[in-house]
């Protein structure tokens, strides 16, 4: 038993992080927010070329041929960078919907009565008839509401969404810590105050708990374990974003700080696939 990442897995994670830092840094993120939620098709194709969508498609079918544990690492990075778009749905459609694997086709799906990125998508998995646009809380996830809550979400999609939540939770922890080490009040950096320190420590604990759960679930692919991982990952992403906002004080409440973008996306992901109540029921049923 060795629960650590292999050398190849570390290299994969590093590669994806470098790619996203180069192609979707903070400036690109803020530009995307200002652009009002249009999908960057060129970036989508670059992700396709890098194997983001074809990661789990077998090599003989032209894919990368890696597994769910590797996909989880890649989606953690996407969550860190707040990469927009129906990433999980397109990844799930790779090898099924022509063009999805290459990033030429944007695929979205109906989940929990919601459809993200409906206007930008080239294909929709599920029945989106009667879709009504909402004013989405997340400026980078346009949403439509469809009647009913039909559509069982694939386990892998739930887990990859949880992985994005873990990446976001990790990022907001880093943001809070770095702010706490720089911001001075009462003649010292605020990170020296226990009240602030303890918020940050709580964020790390939530992240580590969720990360261990998500990575283990990617190995066992056990439905109960995946439900538990989603539950803890949602809590880590939303809880950490809120605590990060608190550590930033008044600055955290402004549009200029990035933390609200993490919080809003975390809310959307929490609602989109296996929300808390059903996740808790699923884990309880396993007892």
């Amino acid at each position: 038993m060795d629960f650590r990442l292999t050398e190849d897995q570390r290299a994969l994670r590093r590669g994806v992080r470098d790619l996203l830092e180069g192609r979707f840094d903070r400036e690109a993120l803020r530009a995307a927010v200002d652009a009002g939620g249009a999908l960057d098709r060129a970036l989508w194709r670059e992700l396709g070329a890098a194997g983001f969508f074809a990661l789990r498609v077998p090599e003989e079918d032209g894919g990368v041929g890696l597994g769910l544990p590797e996909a989880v690492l890649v989606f953690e990075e996407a969550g860190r960078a707040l990469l927009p778009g129906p990433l999980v749905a397109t990844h799930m459609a790779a090898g099924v919907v022509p063009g999805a694997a290459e990033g030429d086709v944007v695929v979205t799906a109906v989940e929990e009565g919601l459809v993200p990125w409906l206007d930008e998508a080239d294909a929709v998995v599920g029945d989106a008839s009667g879709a009504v646009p909402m004013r989405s809380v997340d400026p980078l996830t346009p949403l439509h509401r469809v009647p009913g809550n039909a559509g069982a979400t694939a386990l892998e999609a739930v887990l990859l969404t949880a992985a994005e939540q873990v990446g976001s939770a990790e990022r907001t922890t880093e943001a809070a810590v770095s702010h706490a080490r720089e911001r001075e009040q009462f003649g010292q950096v605020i990170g020296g105050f226990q009240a602030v320190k303890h918020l940050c420590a709580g964020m790390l604990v939530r992240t580590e708990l969720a990360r261990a759960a998500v990575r283990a679930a990617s190995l066992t692919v056990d439905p109960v374990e995946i439900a538990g991982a989603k539950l803890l990952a949602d809590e880590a992403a939303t809880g950490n974003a809120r605590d990060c906002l608190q550590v930033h004080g008044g600055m955290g409440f402004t549009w200029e700080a990035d933390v609200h973008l993490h919080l809003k996306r975390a809310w959307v992901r929490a609602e989109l696939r296996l929300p808390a109540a059903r996740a808790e029921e699923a884990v309880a049923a396993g007892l």
Partner: protein
Amino acid sequence: MDLSCTDEEEEFRARLKAWLTRELPGLPPKPDPLDWPARRAYDCGWQRRLYDAGYADVQWDASPTQRLIFLEETELAGAPYVGANFVGLLHAGPTIAAEGTPEQRARWLPPVLRGDEVWCQGFSEPGAGSDLASLRTRAVRDGDAYVVTGQKIWTSHAEVADWCELLVRTDPDAPSRHRGITWLAMPMDAPGITVRPLRTLAGSAEFAEVFLDEVRVPVENRVGEENDGWRVTMVTLSFERGTAFVGEVVACRRLLGELARTARKNGTWDDPVLRRRLGRLSAEFQALWRIVQANVSEAQATGGVPGAGGSVFKLHYSHARQELYEAAAAVLGPDALDLGRDWTLDRLSSLSYTIAAGTSQIQRNIVAERILGLPKGR
């Protein structure tokens, strides 16, 4: 990432399981939880069985994965807990193994593994609990002995212990209070020691005040250098936080299963709020078990003492376990007020988890300062 075990490890697991299946039915009945001399005898008897079957060494010398399998399987089978042997097996033993001389290891380690000798922990003092470095018990060198005078408190199992891992101040004028501390192995039958049991809120006398009046401890009982006891202590505490709770996570998962069965029987399972609460707890204990595996993998790879990751685990675990007993009270209803139920006593005992082995507040400081790199402060 690989959670599977090697063939060799699976073989070890199968052998251990078979042995537990044979051994457990023949155990004597459990003693009264409030009777510590009886508990010592029971716990040491179990340790002796492990020793005779060749499993005692696993607790220290096996690979971390093998140790994990040992803890997992003994807990799943409902085997007795280390109990009175806790300090010897999980604190003092590993510390002596890491920091002791060959003579010290030969003198103290085998009796712990055989269940012949029981240790207690003489760290805390009335004025030095969470602020451990402010301890005042003094030791003055007199020939081949240290003469120790002072008072210890919250000393678990002191009444039934043979040895005490004792922290003393050997240099009151040291430039920092972390220096000038020394780690001694004190025999509990030495003249000058008075043990006064303290009653806990659970009603049991599991720990005690220990008064030390010019107790002579041979210099050869010193582990590590004189005045270097703080460093030795940090080794002890990292064992305490890093690995001492591993088996308990498995125990909690077992308890949660029992609780769900009880809830299904008495109808409380039909309450969706309670059911979801148990689901959430189950997800947390499952994740805690995965963190244990991650920490063990890290320790196995680095071959070292468990790191600050133990604090991440301890912080969440101690709160989750208290939540488990609160949920149990909701399932049991009025029965949760009956001290005749194991659950009730365990619920009371669990109140110590966020205090013992470093309070949650201290653990948060450790996580913030040592892992996140935030500055030391107030």
